[in-house]
């Protein structure tokens, strides 16, 4: 009986954030008289929050390992400036400019990683310095807005999957992607359950698992149908973000590198004494963060159609907030990308819902702040209750 209770409690904690997202969506759907769920709004939601989703993926790794990265917003602006110079002022073809941006992202990540991992300066200080340095560099190279990118580059953010064939009035390709996604999810859940049973590990009750799968599948299909409607569309970006989420979830859950991140964040001393190369792991975490910052910069520059030094203000805080709302532990050692993604979407839905509902921007900030605090408070309270039980 206790194990049954445990597994429900565990699931509730794990999926509580999902429930929160659904509640937020439901609230704003009513608040905006359904406008929030218009097909084009659903697609725009993802475009608008692409930067948070991408940065939060890296930030989860950084925070789980017990660090923080305050520089990502400035870095997005700096790399955006580099893209502007390369494409407009140097006339580079845009794919080459993108390559340059990615390389610079990796180099900056290596720069931060070097100080954190090998000189052992706290990441807070290293990236605080980075925040100032790269904002300064951004002002130097893109103090005057650089605009006039060619269509190929703009397409990165505004491009959409072609509408090939239709099922009723819905786009067929979109539907197929959605169905494949749901099928994959169900298959992987049953597979891992089978593996658990095989090794004699108490799996969660089958009813609970099916219930969970039904809720998630319905949610995915609802979004899919919305996107498949004539006014909806599947942006390239959604595909890119999907690939990033999948890849980095795999890295965190299934690779030695990912396991070492959790080990370092959970107990650094034990990790060192287990022979884990903590310096190399920390270094690589920041390299990945740099790479993801570069990807975010490419996406945001493409979306804005211009490179501006003032872009990326507070991006680091948005990414950090998404992680914490999504259950990443402030003290490190605990956190999942899926959680952070849901956290980012909650913030995004809040943003969009409040904007559509024409709520005063000043009040919007306040509400978002309170939501962040509330989410972490709820998370802590549920953990405390779990400890007592």
């Amino acid at each position, binding site marked *: 009986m*206790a*194990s049954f209770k445990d597994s429900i409690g565990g699931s509730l904690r794990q999926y509580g954030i999902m429930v929160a997202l659904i509640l937020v969506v439901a609230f704003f759907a009513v608040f905006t008289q359904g406008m929030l769920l218009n097909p084009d709004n659903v697609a725009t939601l993802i475009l608008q929050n692409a930067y948070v989703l991408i940065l939060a993926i890296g930030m989860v790794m950084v925070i789980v390992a017990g660090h923080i990265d305050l520089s990502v917003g400035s870095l997005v602006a700096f790399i955006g400036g580099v893209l502007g110079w390369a494409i407009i002022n140097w006339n580079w073809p845009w794919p080459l400019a993108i390559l340059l941006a990615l390389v610079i992202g990796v180099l900056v990540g290596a720069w931060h990683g070097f100080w954190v991992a090998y000189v052992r300066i706290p990441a807070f200080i290293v990236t605080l310095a980075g925040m100032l340095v790269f904002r300064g560099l951004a002002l130097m190279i893109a103090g005057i807005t650089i605009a006039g990118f060619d269509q190929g580059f703009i397409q990165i953010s505004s491009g959409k999957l072609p509408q090939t064939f239709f099922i009723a009035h819905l786009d067929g390709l979109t539907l197929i992607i959605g169905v494949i996604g749901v099928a994959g999810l169900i298959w992987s859940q049953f597979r891992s359950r089978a*593996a658990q049973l095989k*090794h*004699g*590990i*108490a799996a969660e009750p089958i009813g609970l698992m099916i219930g969970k799968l039904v809720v998630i599948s319905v949610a995915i299909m609802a979004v899919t149908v919305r996107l498949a409607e004539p006014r909806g569309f599947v942006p390239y970006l959604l595909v890119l973000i999907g690939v990033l989420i999948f890849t980095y979830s795999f890295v965190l859950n*299934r*690779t*030695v*590198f990912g*396991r*070492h991140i*959790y*080990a370092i964040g*959970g*107990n650094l*001393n*034990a*990790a*060192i*004494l*287990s*022979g*884990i*190369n903590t310096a190399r792991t920390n270094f690589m975490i920041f390299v990945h963060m740099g790479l993801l910052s570069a990807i975010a910069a490419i996406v945001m520059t493409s979306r804005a159609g211009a490179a501006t030094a003032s872009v990326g203000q507070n991006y680091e805080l948005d990414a950090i907030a998404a992680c914490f709302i999504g259950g990443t532990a402030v003290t490190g*050692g*605990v956190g999942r990308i899926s959680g952070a993604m849901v956290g980012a979407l909650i913030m995004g839905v809040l943003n969009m819902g409040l904007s559509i509902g024409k709520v005063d921007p000043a009040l919007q900030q306040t509400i978002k702040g309170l939501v962040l605090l509330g989410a972490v408070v709820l998370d802590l309270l549920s953990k405390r209750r779990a400890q*007592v*039980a």
Partner: protein
Amino acid sequence: MIETPILEMNDISMEFPGVKALSEVNFQVRAGEIHAICGENGAGKSTLMKVLSGVHPHGSYSGQITYKGGACNFRTIRDSEARGIVIIHQELALIPFLSVAENIFLGNERANHGIIDWGQANKQAAQLLERVGLTENPRTNIVDIGVGKQQLVEIAKALAKRVELLILDEPTAALNDDDSEHLLNILRQLRDEGVTCIIISHKLGEIIKIADSITVIRDGKVIETLNVEKDQVNEERLIKGMVGREMNNRFPEHQPKVGEEIFRIENWTVHHPIDVQRVMVDQVNLDIRAGEIVGLAGLMGSGRTELAMSVFGRTYGADISGNVYLKGVQISTQTVEQAVHNGLAYASEDRKRYGLNLIQSVKENMTAAALGKLAKYGVIETNAETKAANQLKDELTVKTPTVESPVGKLSGGNQQKVSLAKWVYTDPEVLILDEPTRGIDVGAKYEIYQIINNLANQGKAVLVISSELPELIGICDRIYALSEGRITGVVDRADATQEYLMNLMTQETKKAS
């Protein structure tokens, strides 16, 4: 000696969800005595004391507490302290970068209208320190004094609160024999001054030496309360009460099948990492053969952990010199990775800080040091990992619901087994086990000894570091004694006695020059 007890706890019961922590405990303490409580881990000793001191507030338990004739309904520690009951927890509650005086008066500052009178504070602190036999300057920071002295500062802090009933939870667990002896003397002195003491301890010999009464607790129930003078109290009697059975054999049989030399350290010298002039380990030579369990006996500060950690990837010390040989071939142990690669394993004495990641699962902890074995191109084979963890769990009899449970939820003994499993899985040639049975109960100790025996029987070289001499004599084939960083002797099991070893361990090797 017919007197009303100063403290009476009647019919105390307490339940945590799913566990009956205390059931109808009756416990009495006479004024001015030292009353020891002993029992296995999880028997309910600490819970009982937390009930008494208000850590578990009134209402969370049932039953009555009467202290000095008045009922006690403590809601917080402050309530109990107001009545003169002070508890000193096992983990010391001192702030490292505040001075001794600041710590003594923490929460109880010598102040007028919120402004601290430092003259008064330091003067009174010095007086309190004198009562506990310390000559330290009250302005010294806590970090700069040893653990033994820190424990005495805790007592001084209690005295500052005008303590009448002092509760000590495992006060000597982290102390060496000298410091323990000193602490016990201070307790005797306090008793003579009229302070009543309750002491929780695993060290049975020590309890018998100091206590006037001993209460044995098992599974949340009081088994018996003994009067040390009247009843014939010895360790066997206490152990019988604690575990509910005679422990004729506290150590499993071990028939050594000693083979070739596997591990040798030559001229190993280590300096203090900060004070680099100070020699911590001095020209140590040591060897272990296949299938042999070798003990390293030394008091705290003798350099035993420093020796082990400096060999294991230089995780301690500076300016290290000397050679390490595996099967006659010199090996490098510059980093932990190299040491592990070369067949060394080191299980730390402090498993919570240095051994385990408490928020990760049993499985993830077990495989942490040898993930490479389970990975292809950096990707972990999850099925193989689960299988390996399950095997280790069975092999080392780890009691856990599943290998997916967080290690932090296991008992101390099972945590220790996970910590050992991690190193068993690396399949090392040499295992260095630092205090492998610290803070775990008698039954679990026996199982750990069996694991150590099995490892030796597989032909591994095992080095056991311990401050419990009976344990070393009970399980080791050969014992090195370490004093002030030097090996002062090595004895075979047959010739080893506690007295002889203690002599070696306290030998002064250096002249003050």
